[in-house]
């Protein structure tokens, strides 16, 4: 009986120690270039890779590779057609940033249109010196429109007796550059991410 009690006490202490150790908070700063993947889902490393691949394609292919006049582009949102709540604004922001850094393109600030109009109205009120006012009707029209769609396909192993199941996730981002005058798609490309994850059915 004594041995049994000692064993139980020892086991309890061991479990509690493990529990306390498990509850300890630990943090580390992750480098932006480091690839961190926890599961099969979309993550920030994917966004980085997608943006890099498509920026390179857009800048090295026609029509932009031969453009010398820094054409003006308006970026419309990337439609999310996956089965996850993914903020695709992040992808379009990063794309615009990377393309701007190339110095070969200029962008319309579509997101700030309302604020620009509000500011213009303010300037034409009574508080701003006339000589410092912006000129009205001088905004620049875009030559191209950049649009895209993010899609995903999921595949799961069928139900059967096993301890783990495999999940396959496929993402593709299609981008299109449309000439606003002709409505012609002048460039289109896509990039894909395919990831497989193995998930346990049983846990402690």
């Amino acid at each position, binding site marked *: 009986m004594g041995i049994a009690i000692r064993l139980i006490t020892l086991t309890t202490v061991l479990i509690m120690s493990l529990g306390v150790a498990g509850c300890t908070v630990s943090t580390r700063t992750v480098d932006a270039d480091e690839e961190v993947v926890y599961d099969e889902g979309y993550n920030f490393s994917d966004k980085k890779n997608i943006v890099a691949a498509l920026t390179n394609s857009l800048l090295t292919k026609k029509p932009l590779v031969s453009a010398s006049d820094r054409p003006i582009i308006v970026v419309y949102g990337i439609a*999310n057609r996956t*089965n996850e709540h993914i903020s695709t604004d992040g992808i379009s922001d990063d794309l615009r940033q990377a393309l701007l850094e190339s110095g070969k393109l200029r962008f319309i600030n579509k997101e700030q249109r309302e604020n620009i109009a509000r500011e213009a109205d303010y300037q034409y009120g009574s508080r701003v010196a006339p000589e410092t006012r912006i000129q009205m009707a001088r905004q620049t029209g875009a030559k191209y429109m950049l649009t895209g769609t993010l899609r995903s396909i999921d595949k799961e192993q069928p139900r059967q007796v096993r301890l783990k199941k495999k999940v396959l996730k496929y993402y593709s981002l299609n981008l299109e550059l449309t000439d606003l005058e002709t409505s012609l798609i002048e460039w289109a490309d896509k990039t894909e991410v395919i990831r497989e994850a193995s*998930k346990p059915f*049983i846990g*402690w």
Partner: protein
Amino acid sequence: MLPTCRHSPSRANTCNFNRYKRSAWLIVLLALILGGCASAKLTDARREFHAGYPTRAYDILSKVKSYPARDKLLFHLEMGVILFNLGRYEQSTAEFLAAARLKKEQEIISISEQAGSLITTEWLTEYKGEYGERLWIHTYLMMNFLLQAKYEDALVEAKQALELYEKYPEVLAEDYFTRTLIAICYELLGEYNDAYIEYKSLFSQLPDKKNLAGELYYLAHRLGFSDESTQYAAYLNKEEQDFWQNPPETEIVIFAELGRAPDKIPGNIVVPPTIRFSFPQYRNDYDNDYFIDLIHPEKKGQISKTTTEVREVLVTSLEARAKSMIVKETARVAIKEALAQAIEENNGAAAGALTRAILFLSEEPDTRGWETLPAEFALLRIRLHPGTHDLVIAIKDYYGNTIEKIDLPEVKLYPGQNFFKAIKWPEAMSEKVEESTN
């Protein structure tokens, strides 16, 4: 000083008996605490909600600092519905998204939890929701997103709901409401072919096909499936066909939660003298057969209605789990009986009888469930031309008698606009009185 068990062999039997008695009472106490007290706040909140006081229900649940692990899903579900009915769609969305995440985490079966429940009660396990309840997490999310005009997010939920339809096709087949919502989500984002597929799948299952014939006729035309459109034309008269060939692209969609879903009650089979098989079942002694109709404006043939009888889906969901429940229940009864026999052999008939009695009492079926669900989800779609519209909705009983008329606030529809509105019946009438007096 009393002699201890260790140092007094003459008292060994009595001490052993007392030890088992103490352990047994601890088990009972544990079962009672786990089964009852932890969900007291949930019970209070549900009572207030059903009495027509969603604000009070919200106040009760919002005071719970962290949701208990076993009932965490239920807390999110009940809170989600309460917030939905308070019109706080963003907060409701957060609760349902948390429920959806939890649902994914719960896919991993916990060995310790299952082992514990095998010798005690199912109440010890984390509540995972019936199949129908798991689907309705996405249903509420779709409604929440549509009401907030976040159509892309609504489509994400539609796709997750579809995954469940594929996983449990027979169980969820009668949830026509959710399937219609999925089709609407596709349609709103211009994915007409996907919407058409969903409508077609729904059409094959719907008892009253005329309700959906107009939408299908319109989409078949739009997609150029002229051969298929004739199939749906058969359900429409000439006037209706003319209307659905080019319907207005503006519409009002009403989501209605009608009545109250049945709760689970315990069912028992007792094998004398002390073996008890227990199982949950849905109450069926309730009258919740209502439907909604549009009184004004008169748009016969230009509206579509879809209703899901929540009880039907819940009962089918529970039946689908029946096999695994029977296996586990049989194992539990066998283990408990073996335990009682072992105690009887070592400590005498009295200890055995007491253990059996305690184990008999602890054999309590898990009757937990999502209790703020309505008895019916009903969807009413009205295609209208842009302009200002006054709508009057009727709640009717099984025989078609109008029980109540609901005047909706005036709606101004702009070209191409979709207007979504959620209603609940019975309304939280007492809530309005409470608010006006504050």
